[in-house]
């Protein structure tokens, strides 16, 4: 078996240790004997929309995020839509999550996004939303928890009918108002949770690996369990931090 991961803009969109998410997936594939292939795609570059099972995009500084927004729209929009429609798994964190929407706001300016998800990010008065966060997620009929850290100035609002990734247990979430966090549409996942996200939530990493392998191999895949004592302890530790506020 083989998992082909595409890392979008690793030079620009890496601010909250996004590398940790990629390392986490790579090691969990290696330990199970699953082949792991990492491709990077940067500014000005196109990618083969049928050539990747999992597409990752992280967060960046304002200047970088703006450059990336322009590039996504100009160079990669068609490929992103094709990959999504084809069932590739997409995980976008923080700034990358904002770029999934129709637009986001930077100071006074409205910047066009991919429009891959029904959401929009605006600025409102009030401080940045910063702190440990925990959300309740239901992807397959089982309620689970994601824990992480959020740090965003933008407030994200989902269109009616657009599903969030989860509901805020503690922390701010998309906008600090409606109790929703992230976005989830079939194999598309967007969230403000970094920390990085996957090392703090090994179950989500395995869920995404499973979906990506299904996409590649065209059928359900049973993942071999791994000894996850440290992973569970790390999840609990991040969760405690979120619950302590």
């Amino acid at each position, binding site marked *: 078996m083989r998992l082909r991961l595409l890392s979008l803009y690793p030079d620009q969109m890496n601010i909250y240790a996004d590398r940790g998410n990629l*390392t986490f997936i790579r090691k969990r594939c290696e330990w199970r004997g699953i082949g792991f292939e990492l491709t990077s795609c940067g500014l000005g570059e196109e990618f083969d929309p049928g050539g990747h099972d999992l597409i990752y995009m992280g967060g960046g500084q304002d200047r970088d995020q703006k450059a990336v927004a322009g590039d996504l729209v100009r160079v990669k929009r068609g490929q992103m839509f094709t990959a999504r429609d084809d069932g590739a798994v997409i995980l976008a964190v923080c700034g990358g999550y904002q770029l999934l929407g129709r637009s986001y706001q930077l100071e006074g300016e409205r910047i066009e996004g991919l429009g891959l998800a029904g959401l929009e990010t605006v600025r409102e008065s009030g401080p940045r939303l910063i702190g440990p966060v925990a959300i309740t997620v239901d992807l397959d009929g089982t309620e689970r928890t994601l824990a992480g*850290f959020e740090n965003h100035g933008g407030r994200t609002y989902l269109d009616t009918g657009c599903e969030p990734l989860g509901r805020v247990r503690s922390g701010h979430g998309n906008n600090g108002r409606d109790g929703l966090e992230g976005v989830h549409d079939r194999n598309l996942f967007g969230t403000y949770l970094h920390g990085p996200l996957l*090392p703090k939530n090994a179950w989500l990493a395995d869920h995404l690996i499973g979906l990506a392998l299904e996409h590649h191999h065209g059928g359900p895949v049973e993942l071999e369990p791994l000894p996850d004592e440290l992973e569970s*302890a790390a999840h609990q530790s991040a969760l405690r931090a979120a619950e302590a506020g």
Partner: protein
Amino acid sequence: MIRLKAAVARLLGRLIRLTGKGGGTTLPGRMLLKLDPNAVDKLGARLSGGSTLISATNGKTTTASMLAVILEGAGRIPVHNRSGSNMNWGVATALLEQSGEEGLFEVDEAWLAETAARLDPHTIFLGNLFRDQLDRYGETETLADAWLDLARERSGSTEFVLNADDPLVADIGRASGPGTTYYGIEDRSPAVPELQHASDAKNCRVCGAELTYERAYVGHLGHYHCPSCGMERPKPEVSAHDVALDGMTGLSARIETPEGPVVLDLPLPGLYNLYNALGAIATARVLGIDPEAAVESLTSMKAVFGRVERIQIDQTELSILLIKNPAGANEVLRTLALERDPVDLWIGLNDRIADGRDVSWIWDADFEELGDRVRSVVCTGTRASEMALRLKYADWPAERITVVEKLDRSLERALEPGPGRLFALPTYTALLELRQLLAERHDADRYWQV
């Protein structure tokens, strides 16, 4: 009035110390600021020799301590917040409890504008900007913008000493005016050819184009230019050549200055300490101290609290190296990898406000560099298990990793492998706890000085 308020706050400081509850390094200052919010301005105005401010993401405590040693060597005893407490109250506490003719203050990056407005410093040293505690400081570019504004405001009344090798810092020379001094490394041998993966300065501050690096020394510190607008690294007046690194023991280099060359033998390890020393020598020059005299004082200096500190516990020599952000941690890891024998480690990861609540940064630090050199490691602190997890994914052998969440129980465990050298890598509040623990159990000197 300020005299009376100062006396009250000073008395309080003594009481706190008498009770033995911590160092009281900031409480007297906090108390004073409650009594008089402008106390720093008033007490600072009494320093007849004016003030020097030191700021940077990494190395400000070390650089300020080096400069203090140099000033003391020249017979000048500064008022100095030597415990590393570098926000308004830390500065206030030092002003309150020490007497001297000139001020030497390390200042938190985000507090620099306010402290400068209060103290009207004749000299400001700016060392580097790395991503650090994003939950508190925000983006490095935002801080660089704030520093640029500050330099514009103070041009003509403050002399700036800037690191030529950090494009975020050197750029401040655009605004700081003709009285600006640069320092940097000129030797090409200790450089790495590529930027680290999570570089904090990829773009030209003038035109926004991607910078071209000829070489990098520490993180994004190196030799760069902008291929688009022609912006270049400024030529440093104080520069290091013929650099020789001697593991954890120290380093040597030839320092070129307008006054001629001097040979530096520093009892501190790593290129990051070379930068700290260069900065201290360059700042001392601005303060009227000859580089030769500065180097002589530095050669004799003892390690500064927390940065590299050695303590003997029975048969084990414990060295403490602060880690708090990816760039700083990477330099520590790179230096440890030079050790000949396998190392025993103690890593303390806390997520209190002074550490940064967000511990993501451990995934940006290159723990991979050290995995095969480690004999044992104890992870402790409020986020101990996340530290251990990071090491597991850096391919450190699982059987050598132990988690002991309670910091006060962790040290005994770390000493178990027996005689040898133990390296302690704490975040800031873990460092304070470790010192407290050592003070209680092993009679180490208390770190605060008054």
